[in-house]
């Protein structure tokens, strides 16, 4: 048995044949298998055709990954923005079809190059985590631009049935085959051959691969790394546009912010199968996934089951993968060192003024939380309760990203699980709400293990991929009342807290949520100060060094995600209480991306920063809802969060809280100077040009302190 497994691992041909045998056997036993006599060839043909589209998407992702070693979450939006121009010109303005396509692809190529010059190059010295987050911001900005283009060109949303001049009509039972199908089928192999030729046969392609492997060495050898990177991003822009335009006759055009990150889910699944490396594997994987999807569509009546397929494929592909990290793939996780927020220096923390200000601010904060709701309308209080729940989700991201250096783009998926658990327990069995909350916390942790383990056992930011797949599957399949009619807690009767305070009152609910958030913050702070918290930071900053100190790095990463999942589960329990139920659409995948953006803008280095970011943007949402609706509101939201994210990542990697802390440090420096106390950490952080009279070295500091 070991021999056979060993041979399978060593010999790719044997592994491929074994895979085919297993796949054939599995399909044979599936009721209504895709064998010709059971399932029509037309279904397989549709799978192959749409699979090539997934392969195309994956090829663009792989191309960027091989150059910059990041998962480009803006890839979908890089195609949908120029695609909106092409479709708008053809569909709404009546332009010639080939001309519209050429203009669209041209804009795609140009915008790809522009994105590299304007955005990606700015982050050349940042960690890959920061650059990955920048692509999330970029996706939102491009999403807003696509919405604006749609409005300008008069392009309304439509679902499928766009009539292109490709007039071929055929039929493979039970589906028709049109010219658009053939175009889609033909484009992928041609592009794959072109990309393969470029990467393997041309000197530019070789230089691209060299720069991806070791950027500094390539620069030393005279490779024009920046120019090549621009070329790759231009190619990726064109490729994404082509993918969008070949799909649009079938999928239709829906101007939607979701295009930003969740629409590339099939592409991500295929890219994971191809290990973000091999283009032929991407083509094979795409076709496999396409056939699997259409087989399931043909055999299973459940709605959105293919979203679960993508999730399962991604999890399995990551589980069977061994950690073959190259030198180029190390060091991806460090959150920018400039973004690490520090507490008040020990030398000053005990001073009377400092203690009084800290206590005063704390008391003011608590008073604000207590008093403001008393003067607010019930609807405003409900909004505040929602904000409290979002703060809890933001806190879970501080643990995961701020401390652990990993990204979750599906945190609201785990919130949804918590809500389902707590909602069902309360709705069906009228269980004590605290027990329901505890169960939601527990389930959040279990989900974190299931979704996190496959991704965290290997290097790379794959957790973002698995979590986004989970969030999409949860919203479209698991929370779908058609699939689980009895298990979606549509509405619950709110409990009476300790037999005394009825939670039907918005105020009681708010104070309960706020207290829970406060307790959770204390627990999180305690964990951060413990040995476990220090281990998490150590693994984030240098996992090899941490491993050499006998810290089990994978276990620590998983622990971090479990704590984060528990907090998200708790948030789910509270969410169902505030909303009075939940269902499909309650936990949309875009919410996970939004809360992530808010927390980064506020400052993921500290709980206070993330809280400030979430509260600020939820407040902005509340104000915006008064003045803007529909597309205008969506454009404003996407522009604000997307551009805010990029701005913050570039200028203030520690978020807005970094700015607040800089002002605090300025005051503390003044205090230290007045009191004649030497505080090396404050002096070390100070820019030399901040103060002309600043001591230039340590002896000067000591002399100043003694004088």
């Amino acid at each position, binding site marked *: 048995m070991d021999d056979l497994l060993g041979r399978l691992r060593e010999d790719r041909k044997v592994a491929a044949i074994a895979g085919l045998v297993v796949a054939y056997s599995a399909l044979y036993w599936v009721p209504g298998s895709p064998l010709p006599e059971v399932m029509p060839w037309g279904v397989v043909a549709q799978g192959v055709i749409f699979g090539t589209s997934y392969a195309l998407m994956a090829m663009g992702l792989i191309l960027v990954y091989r150059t910059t070693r990041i998962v480009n979450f803006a890839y979908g939006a890089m195609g949908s923005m120029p695609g909106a121009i092409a479709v708008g010109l053809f569909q709404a303005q009546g332009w010639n079809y080939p001309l519209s396509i050429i203009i669209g692809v041209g804009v795609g190529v140009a915008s790809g190059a522009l994105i590299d010059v304007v955005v990606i190059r700015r982050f050349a010295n940042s960690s890959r985590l920061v650059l990955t987050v920048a692509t999330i911001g970029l996706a939102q900005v491009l999403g807003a631009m696509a919405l604006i283009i749609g409005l300008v060109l008069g392009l309304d949303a439509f679902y499928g049935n766009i009539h292109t001049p490709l007039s071929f009509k055929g039929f493979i039972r039970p589906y028709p085959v049109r010219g658009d199908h053939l175009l889609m089928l033909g484009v992928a192999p041609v592009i794959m051959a072109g990309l393969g030729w470029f990467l393997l046969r041309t000197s530019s392609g070789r230089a691209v691969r060299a720069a991806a492997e070791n950027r500094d060495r390539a620069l030393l050898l005279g490779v024009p790394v920046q120019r090549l990177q621009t070329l790759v991003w231009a190619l990726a822009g064109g490729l994404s546009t082509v993918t969008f335009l070949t799909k649009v006759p079938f999928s239709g055009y829906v101007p939607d912010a979701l295009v930003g990150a969740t629409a590339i889910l099939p592409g991500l699944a295929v890219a994971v199968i191809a290990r973000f490396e091999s283009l032929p594997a991407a083509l094979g994987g795409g076709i496999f996934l396409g056939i699997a999807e259409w087989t399931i569509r043909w055999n299973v009546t459940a709605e959105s089951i293919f979203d679960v397929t993508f999730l399962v494929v991604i999890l399995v592909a990551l589980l069977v993968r061994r950690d073959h990290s190259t030198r180029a793939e190390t060091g991806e996780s460090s959150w920018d060192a400039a973004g690490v927020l520090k507490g008040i220096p020990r030398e000053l923390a005990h001073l009377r003024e400092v203690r009084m200000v800290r206590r005063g601010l704390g008391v003011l904060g608590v008073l604000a939380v207590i008093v403001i709701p008393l003067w607010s309308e019930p609807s405003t209080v409900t909004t505040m309760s929602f904000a409290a729940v979002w703060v809890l989700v933001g806190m879970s991201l501080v643990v995961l990203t701020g401390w652990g250096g990993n990204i979750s783009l599906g945190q609201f998926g785990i919130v949804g699980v918590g809500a389902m658990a707590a909602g069902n327990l309360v709705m069906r069995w*009228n269980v004590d709400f605290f027990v329901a909350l505890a169960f939601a916390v527990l389930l959040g942790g279990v989900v974190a293990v299931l979704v996190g383990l496959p991704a965290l056992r290997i290097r790379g930011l794959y957790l973002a991929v698995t979590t986004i797949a989970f969030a999409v599957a949860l919203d479209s399949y698991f929370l779908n009342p058609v699939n689980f009619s009895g298990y979606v807690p549509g509405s619950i009767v709110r409990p*009476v807290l300790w037999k005394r305070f009825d939670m039907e009152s918005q105020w009681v609910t708010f104070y309960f949520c706020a207290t829970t958030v406060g307790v959770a913050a204390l627990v999180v702070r305690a964990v951060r100060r413990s040995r476990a918290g220090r281990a998490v930071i150590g693994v984030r900053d240098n996992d090899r060094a941490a491993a050499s100190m006998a810290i089990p790095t994978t276990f620590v990463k998983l622990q971090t995600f479990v704590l984060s999942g528990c907090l998200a589960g708790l948030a789910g329990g509270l969410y169902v209480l505030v909303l009075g139920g939940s269902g499909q659409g309650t936990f949309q995948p875009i919410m996970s991306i939004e809360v992530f953006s808010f927390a980064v803008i506020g400052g993921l280095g500290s709980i206070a920063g993330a809280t400030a970011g979430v509260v600020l943007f939820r407040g902005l949402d509340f104000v915006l809802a008064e003045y803007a609706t529909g597309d205008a509101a969506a454009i404003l939201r996407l522009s604000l969060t997307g551009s805010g994210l990029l701005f913050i990542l570039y200028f203030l990697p520690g978020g807005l809280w970094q700015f607040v802390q800089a002002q605090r440090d300025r005051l503390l420096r003044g205090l230290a100077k007045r009191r004649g106390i030497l505080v090396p950490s404050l002096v070390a952080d100070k820019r030399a040009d901040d103060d002309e009279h600043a001591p230039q070295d340590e002896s000067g500091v000591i002399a100043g302190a003694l004088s």
Partner: protein
Amino acid sequence: MNDTNGQHADPAPTGITSMQSLREPVERSLLFRGFGPLVVALALFALMVALVPTVAPEQIVERPVAGARP
């Protein structure tokens, strides 16, 4: 017995050495091996659930039986 420097090594120490004292189990006065606060918290939680439960008020829903005569 020579050590790696070729010099004569000290004879093996006898009696209670510092290493042995480190190996001896330390007497701990922790309740439930340090998990005392957790146990107390769980006990308090159970008491709260038992004595002052946070549950929805019972509602009596009257529904006409299908096919019943008025």
